[in-house]
């Protein structure tokens, strides 16, 4: 059993959420062999090796940072929030697709979420892990990170609860915890499947411990369903709260270009936008590499492309309103900020961002183009870049020229900024590679359920 059990005609042409001809046994086999019996593909080793290399770059950059301090980065007055905050917002935004897919789409009973949720949740976790690194290492004295938490410290003071930066700590750590729980609880029945199928004693022990004694009895399932739904309910507000609070980090400041009420919805839409872009960027190569076209079908890609288009339009509306309000406010500084964005030293980046985030996704209006998989991949990739540029523009253009012309300045990342950023991408990919090697990347039992419901609908 070294090859996937079935290789029947794929569902590419149809609009099913699962390829035809699948039975309970076949989906279980197809997903679990990747983890259990298939020989680790050479591509996996290459991919993992390369990303691990980047993880080493990250460690190197962070070690040097701890030794030398944040002076190795490009930040300075007036731009004291450089790459660290740009990357933080970018990663945390990417982390939004997971909970959206798993919680909101679950509550809305969108069946097409089933084959992408596990994978999107894992991606969320890893993105949040990458995001979490940045606020910590930009602290100056990262070893005092625990001062961010309210605890009875010997300084006798509490954190400033009126500051969104403190809300951030709670928002992000709650989000990470709930996402982790959600992901893990969803994994339990599958871990039990792996435990029962594993041949190697060590693998059986490992999956057995993680499965926490799951036997699949009616009581287990009943509790499982309750817990899962409750968590979904808990996670739903988090989808909007986290990026809302991240946007407050900016909006509460009186810096021109930040002090704007449109920020929360516009940030949340941007987060979901970039999250879906990342899911697509990863899902498309994966389904090709592991021949999962009949589990992650064209229907999935099509739906994700539509979500991408919709959130992209909301984001475009956000850009439009930002520009409009800068003019409508009549405020000298706001107007200058916008003029500076459009034609100042960072203008090329701004126009590149508009191209990536607004122009390119318009191809998704056409069903024929949405069916073109390589094109979807390229669009998703471009949106990822565009969203990074967006955060760069927000952070840098507002700060580098604010109220006092005498304190204007320019900002650019140093080699260490880039090393850290690229390093986190490596960390993200390395974790993903480990995930697809060690855990079922598609929920096995939910796919079985899907086979069941699809069948009963057909009959």
């Amino acid at each position, binding site marked *: 059993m070294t090859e996937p059990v079935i290789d029947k005609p794929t569902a590419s042409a149809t609009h099913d959420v699962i390829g035809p001809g699948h039975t309970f046994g076949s989906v279980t086999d197809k997903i679990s062999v990747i983890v259990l019996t298939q020989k680790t593909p050479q591509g996996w080793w290459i991919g993992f090796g390369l990303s691990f290399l980047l993880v080493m770059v990250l460690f190197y950059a962070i070690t040097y940072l701890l030794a030398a301090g944040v002076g190795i980065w490009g930040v300075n007055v007036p731009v004291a929030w450089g790459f660290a905050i740009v990357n933080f917002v970018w990663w945390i935004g990417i982390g939004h697709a997971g909970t959206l897919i798993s919680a909101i789409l679950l509550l809305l009973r969108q069946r097409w979420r089933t084959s992408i949720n596990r994978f999107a949740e894992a991606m969320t976790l890893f993105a949040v892990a990458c995001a979490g690194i940045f606020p910590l290492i930009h602290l100056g004295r990262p070893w005092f990170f625990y001062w961010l938490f309210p*605890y009875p410290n*010997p300084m*006798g003071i509490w954190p400033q609860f009126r500051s969104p930066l403190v809300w951030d700590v709670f928002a992000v750590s709650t989000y990470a915890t709930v996402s982790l729980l959600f992901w893990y609880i969803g994994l339990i029945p599958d871990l039990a499947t792996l435990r029962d199928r594993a041949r190697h004693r060590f693998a059986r022990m490992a999956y057995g411990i993680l499965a926490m004694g799951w036997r699949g009895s009616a009581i287990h399932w009943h509790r499982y369903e309750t817990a899962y739904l409750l968590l979904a309910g808990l996670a739903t507000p988090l989808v909007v709260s986290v990026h809302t609070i991240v946007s407050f980090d900016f909006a509460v400041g009186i810096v021109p270009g930040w002090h704007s009420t449109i920020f929360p919805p516009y940030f949340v839409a941007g987060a979901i936008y970039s999250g879906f872009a990342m899911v697509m960027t990863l899902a498309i190569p994966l389904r090709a590499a592991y021949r999962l076209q009949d589990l992650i079908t064209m229907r999935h890609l099509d739906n994700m492309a539509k979500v991408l288009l919709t959130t992209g339009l909301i984001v475009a509306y956000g850009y439009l309103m930002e520009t409009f309000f800068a003019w409508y406010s009549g405020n000298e500084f706001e107007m200058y900020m916008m003029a500076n964005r459009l034609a100042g030293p960072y203008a090329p980046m701004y126009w590149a961002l508009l191209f990536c985030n607004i122009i390119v996704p318009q191809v998704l209006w056409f069903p024929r183009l949405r069916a073109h998989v390589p094109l979807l991949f390229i669009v998703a990739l471009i949106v990822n870049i565009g969203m990074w540029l967006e955060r760069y523009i927000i952070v840098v253009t507002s700060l580098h020229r604010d109220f006092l012309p005498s304190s204007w300045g320019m900002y650019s990342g140093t080699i260490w900024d880039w090393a850290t950023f690229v390093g986190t991408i490596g960390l993200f990919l390395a974790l993903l590679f480990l995930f697809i090697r060690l855990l079922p990347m598609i929920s096995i039992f939910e796919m079985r359920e899907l086979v069941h419901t699809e069948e009963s609908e057909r009959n």
Partner: protein
Amino acid sequence: MAQIFHPSTNTLSRVTIFGALFLIIGLLWLLAQINRSPYVTDVNVVRAQPVPFSHQHHVSGIGIDCRYCHKSVENSSFAGIPSTSTCMNCHAHIWTNSEMLEPVRESFRTGRPLRWTRVHDLPDFVYFNHSIHVQKGVGCVTCHGRVDLMPLMRQAESLQMEWCLACHRAPARFVRPREHVFQMDWVPSIDQQDLGEELVRKYNIRVEQLTDCSICHR
């Protein structure tokens, strides 16, 4: 298929899950304790000094006033450490053969000052001022403990920020009439709270601003 785990694993896993909870709480508690323990704050730690100078002998034994040696405590931020010649005012005449006093005499001969090791030492980012505290009726004993009973100098309080703030938030609990600042065994004759509130008014202590960060971190 044989079971992978023995049935006792069930109990074991329950115990570890609950145990982990207590373990984590216990660890956090331990950390909090360590953070306030002498290990971190150096409370009651005696330092090696060139001369084993005893406040007990000189203050309660002979009855010398603090200001005889700590001259600038009333009008400077720095309390002042006595010079060798201050010691020699007496020790040029008494205990002239004492082994212990040899470093003092040597310092006097050579003119090289004694190098005392600091016992109280705030971080450099904290601004502290003795004169204001003395003027507003905070006794030496409130911050330094019963110096007159210390054979060797040691720190009596943690000097952590929460300790400063405990007083700055409510100085009425500690202030005393100015004339008793140097008295080690003074106790209020009426209720401290009533006396304190009156003195806070009388000495014009502005409690509202005493916890501003910039008072101590300038």
